[in-house]
């Protein structure tokens, strides 16, 4: 550890306050009986809310900090912009839809099921139009998948930028989808499914967000989804129908899906030429970088989740995921990558889905440099930012799956840093 490294004054003051707050609960027991136990509390005497009070509930007010947040300076307009899932405050793997991130290019549109139409055309025997009701008559499937924006962690290419895991890694959500395999609809239309063919998919919104998908993927695991986490899609997530493209960059998960066209070449639309292409240090660019590689991040402790309980037992927790399949292992380092311990998976994650990991450890109160490193079923090991930069330079914008480092000081305050 660099001896010259010092926490900021503000962080230090905040850390002292947090430590003091943490000691109050302990003091109550030391100084005598806890009045929360010995004195009759209102909630143990009076009645609570009736079952008719909240037909569709929101989280309790004490959790009002667990919300989507945006970063104004990132984009020119909030209509074509991004916000961030509060992954620092969540646990498990399923993202509550109400705080799952949004990314729109011309805003979240309101499209009634009655007004919804899906067209399949192009190289098909029978160009078809489906209503929403039609889609619910096809055999359906359930799958849990992560949707990660290609730009997640993109601000961090050139250095440690935003101080919070919500902002560095929160362009992601993970839901259980119900829908119809795209291959079912392609068959219904008598599509030419030769593997040199493509499907071009576009939304009903003004941006359209058209993208080209190779036929092999379209026939594999792409879903035309109309439910997420058990209920209809939220407006901002594509109500009433979106595309689910497992393991692939979020941009291709076309919302408000209105048309699927079978073509004999990629359309090379704006969203796969100007955007979602990755510029190398030499000025050339990669296109069609569809898969999201294995990645992980520690969500607690993190800059928004300092350690407030002092030394002793500590749960280090985080998320890991891979577009190539299942996460098989996550290693955690407390010393910036000199030594690693293998963490415990909350449960074996689904393929191409978020996986929760825990390292149950003892904190001695000394500063830590926390890192997590994911491995997937192909044997791929999440790289360091140095490894990525050596390959790609600093201007790739997209697909930053580097190992993240949090510096945790002696007060338990965490900061986003880069290490040598």
């Amino acid at each position, binding site marked *: 550890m660099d001896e010259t490294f010092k926490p900021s004054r503000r962080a230090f003051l905040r850390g002292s306050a947090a430590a003091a707050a943490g000691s109050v609960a302990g003091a109550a027991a030391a100084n005598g009986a806890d009045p929360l136990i010995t004195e009759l509390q209102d909630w143990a005497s009076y009645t609570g809310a009736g079952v008719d009070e909240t037909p569709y509930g929101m989280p309790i007010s004490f959790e009002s900090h667990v919300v989507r947040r945006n970063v104004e300076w990132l984009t020119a307009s909030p209509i074509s912009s991004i916000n961030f899932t509060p992954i620092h405050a969540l646990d498990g793997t399923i993202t509550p839809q109400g705080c799952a991130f949004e990314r729109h290019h011309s805003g979240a549109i309101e499209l009634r099921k009655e007004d919804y139409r899906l067209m399949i055309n192009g190289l098909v025997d029978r160009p078809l139009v489906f209503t929403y009701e039609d889609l619910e008559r096809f055999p359906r499937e359930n799958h849990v998948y992560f949707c990660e924006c290609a730009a997640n962690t993109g601000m961090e290419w050139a*250095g*440690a930028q935003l101080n919070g895991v919500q902002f560095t890694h929160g362009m992601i959500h993970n839901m259980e989808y119900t829908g119809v395999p795209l291959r079912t609809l392609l068959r219904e239309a008598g599509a030419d499914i030769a593997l040199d063919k493509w499907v071009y998919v576009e939304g009903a919104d*003004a941006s359209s967000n058209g993208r080209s998908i190779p036929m092999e993927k379209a026939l594999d695991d792409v879903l035309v989804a109309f439910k997420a986490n058990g209920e209809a899609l939220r407006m901002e997530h594509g109500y009433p129908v979106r595309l689910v493209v497992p393991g692939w960059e979020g941009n291709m998960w076309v919302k408000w899906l209105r048309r699927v066209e079978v073509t004999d070449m990629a359309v090379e*639309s704006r969203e796969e030429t100007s955007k979602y292409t990755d510029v190398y240090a030499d000025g050339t*660019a990669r296109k069609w970088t569809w898969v999201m590689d294995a990645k992980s991040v520690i969500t607690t402790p993190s*800059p928004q989740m300092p350690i407030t309980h002092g030394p002793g037992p500590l749960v280090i927790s985080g998320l890991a995921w891979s577009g190539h399949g299942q996460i098989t292992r996550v290693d955690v380092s407390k010393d910036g990558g*000199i030594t*690693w311990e293998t963490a415990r998976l909350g449960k074996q994650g689904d393929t191409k889905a978020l996986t929760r990991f825990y390292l149950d450890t003892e904190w001695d109160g000394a500063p830590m*440099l926390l890192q997590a490193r994911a491995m997937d079923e192909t044997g791929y090991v999440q790289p360091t930012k140095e490894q990525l930069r050596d390959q790609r330079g600093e201007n790739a914008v997209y697909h930053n799956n580097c190992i993240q480092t949090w510096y945790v000081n002696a007060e338990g305050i965490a900061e*986003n840093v880069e290490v040598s």
Partner: protein
Amino acid sequence: AVEGTYGIGRPALDEEVAAWDVDVLPDGRGLPAGGGDVFTGEEVFAEKCASCHGDFAEGVDNWPVLAGGFDTLADEDPVKTVGSYWPYLSTAWDYIHRSMPFGEAGTLTADETYAIVAYILYSNDLVDDNFELTRENFADFNMYNMDGFTVDDRPEQEYAAWRAEPCMENCKDEVQVTMRSVFLVDTPPEGGSDSV
């Protein structure tokens, strides 16, 4: 129903397909008849585009720059414009016609779109001021960065090397903090910089 299908859905009519299938392929397939020249494009651009993209497609405030930036792609701060970066002219026509102006998408005629695209090419010094873009000469136009893209080669360049058993102990001699986010940019107040 055709054998092997569920018989769900109904045939799409030609006029329905025509209304929604407006994409243009890199080889120009999908373009409607028509054309537009630079002078007309300058007028249309001034009226419908310049308030965000600037009179010369140079961009206003944080709105996208459409012209210039040639040979900056390897710089520290690349300027990726239609001229310096986009590989196909079809994309410009398709995207403008379908999704611009921002907030009034789908209102440009085919001729207006040809004219705007001609003007953007002119703003990038890629054509003379008497240039007219038409469906007929569209496919002849080669973009500056048409050869600037390679298909995803991560499997060869990265995966092969990174699928190896990782180091677990004594992986480095020492670790130095080289960069701290709190000194660089503004995280919203709900982030770690200002709140617990």
